[in-house]
């Protein structure tokens, strides 16, 4: 089966033909659906105040994480932001540990100490999320440096928002990563907003890819959120890195459907209109891929996903809170 999600081409001249097998489709949809439903469930639970910490939902942006993580090996690293549910799940992070973490339970992926903003799954090399914008970018390069020093053929993916590219650490890191040919795929999820600020008061120009290229880093702009296109670009970039190639940059346009932080929509807040959402909602990757599947298969996957989400929520509900002594554990590593 040959699939091209979107008819219009991106900026890149030589775009490869996108081929997805039935197995690809099934696998991709399963992850997409799991992320979407897990986040919708978080949003549903949130008003009960069982989750007493900030959550940044990726609803609408899932395709990017899923596309990129689909071409990774388990030993590859992924660095994320506080908006990390999608990448956490796509990289194989344990859903139970994620929901339990939001509940503040000791079974959470950080034992209740980090919440949604600091997810981590070192068993899948999903690196810890930071709530300070931009901090993970050089950290990702540091992992890249370690890979090179050890002569491994792993890669690092570094997700970031459009806002993060305004931090000095971004360009400092680009320069260093290119200089040392580090195997880092930088992926900017450009949803057009930093909290409620559009690009207007933040970006002098939109020439992000051109800028990145001046560091000697190939850069690709994907305008429409096309999962297969992103997956192709990521796959090519990563294959080259495994052969010793240096960093590559992807700017993937996307749209955040919910409020910046929290469970709700906020099209009444005045800073953006629902019209802006509509084209993105129409080409919603989750629905689109679902529609490509055999109906029975889709229903089956959906049911499995529901069960997994329900299981994770039940696990979180039933898990205990940490004991008081945990407050003083792990300030320092011992050994």
């Amino acid at each position, binding site marked *: 089966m040959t699939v091209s999600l979107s008819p219009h081409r991106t900026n890149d001249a030589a775009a490869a033909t996108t081929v997805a097998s039935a197995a690809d489709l099934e696998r991709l949809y399963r992850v997409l659906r799991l992320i979407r439903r897990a986040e919708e469930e978080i949003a549903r639970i*949130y008003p009960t*105040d069982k989750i*007493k*910490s*900030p*959550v940044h939902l990726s609803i609408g942006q899932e395709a990017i994480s899923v596309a990129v993580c689909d071409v990774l090996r388990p030993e590859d690293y992924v660095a994320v932001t506080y908006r990390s549910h999608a990448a956490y799940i796509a990289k194989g992070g344990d859903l139970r540990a994620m929901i339990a973490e939001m509940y*503040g*339970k000791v079974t*959470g992926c950080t034992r*209740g*100490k*980090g*919440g949604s*903003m*600091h997810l981590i799954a070192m068993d899948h090399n999903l690196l810890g999320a*930071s*709530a*300070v*914008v*931009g901090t993970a970018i050089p950290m990702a390069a540091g992992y890249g440096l370690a890979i090179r020093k050890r002569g491994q053929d792993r890669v690092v993916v570094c997700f970031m928002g459009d*806002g*993060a590219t*305004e*931090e*000095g650490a971004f360009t400092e890191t680009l320069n260093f990563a290119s200089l040392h040919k580090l195997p880092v795929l930088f992926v900017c999820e450009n949803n057009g907003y*930093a*909290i*409620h*600020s559009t690009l207007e*008061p*933040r*970006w002098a120009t939109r020439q992000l890819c051109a800028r990145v290229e001046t560091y000697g880093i190939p850069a690709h702009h994907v305008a429409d959120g096309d999962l297969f296109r992103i997956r192709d670009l990521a796959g090519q970039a990563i294959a080259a890195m495994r052969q010793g190639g240096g960093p590559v940059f992807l700017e993937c346009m996307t749209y955040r459907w919910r*409020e910046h*932080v*929290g*469970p709700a929509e906020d099209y009444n*807040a*005045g*800073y953006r209109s629902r019209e802006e959402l509509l084209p993105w909602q129409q080409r919603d990757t989750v629905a689109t891929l679902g529609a490509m599947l055999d109906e029975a298969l889709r229903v089956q996957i959906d049911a499995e996903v529901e069960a997994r989400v329900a299981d994770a929520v039940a696990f979180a509900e039933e898990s205990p*809170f*940490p004991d*008081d002594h*945990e*407050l*003083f554990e792990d*300030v320092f590593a011992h050994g």
Partner: protein
Amino acid sequence: MADTVTEGGRLLSYVDALVEGAAQEMERDPDVFVLGLGVDDHRAIMGSTRGLVQRFGRERVMDTPLSEDAMTGVAIGAAMAGLRPIHVHIRMDFLLLCMNQLVNVAAKARYMYGGTVKVPLVVRGMIGRSWGQGAQHSQGLHALFAHIPGLKVIAPANAHDAKGCLIQAIRDDNPVVFVEHRLLYPIEAFVDEKPFAVPFGQARVHAEGSDITLVGVSHGAVECLRAREILRDVGIDAGVIDPVSLVPLDTGTILGAAVRTGRLLVVDSAWTFCGIGAEILAQLAERTDARHVHARRMGFAPTTCPTTPVLENGFYTNPVKVAKAAYRLVRPDGPDWEPSPELTHMAHQKKFRGPF
């Protein structure tokens, strides 16, 4: 030493007092302007810049890129050029990106340039607490700035001081790090409608007390006031002092009270190691007339801040913890005392909900 906050005005919340102070100064002085990420959006930095962009326009209420380091430098340059920027950070934790400019440039410029420039800059930073702010959105970092000569550090704990100190900070010709606390935002106090300045370097004596002196920094002041009430139940009369200004620090008032009551408990909204409490106790230790004073510090637990509420409770001070520590200082051999746990959380804290 300043009077307690009872004179005139009408009830106003801390957050509205911040808005009013900024607005009145912007009205008075066209050189005053506000910058920071999101200062002009509908959330208005949790309300603390509410309405400013509507009144003064985007030229004077400027949204910025996420470039804290350079934006601090820009603010410093603008201040040197004669403007009076108010640089706003929704969390104090982000000031760690501004340290080079604040410490290496703003704090030192006047001195290292032989008195030929001044840097009338206000840097507002909010301490986050509650709703799982976690490791990176909860820090009280005022001690880092207080350590550096050339920076003033102010931490108002009530609406009156929030307005008066902000006005004073704006008028001050030096860089002022202005420490806010988001749990204080909804709390009301009587605030004069007219512009007024609270002079720096004067601690506010909220209550005289004969048994112990409680010194509360930022939200710590509110906890001390509640602790004072709790302590009354066991017949302990606690005085409460809010330093308000950490640099310059009104050691005279604080240590004078400590010497009189013979006990001193400092409650900070920060870690204690090399903190403001350490400074106050060290100054106490250096005094020859204070040998009789029993002293203690409280603040954040010496750990990173966790998100889950059960551990957060252990991380933070609260009125009951303060009261118990004070009780123990006053009655080292007294029977154990357990105030009602219901007194632990204050109304404004219980009301607080996310999502941020």
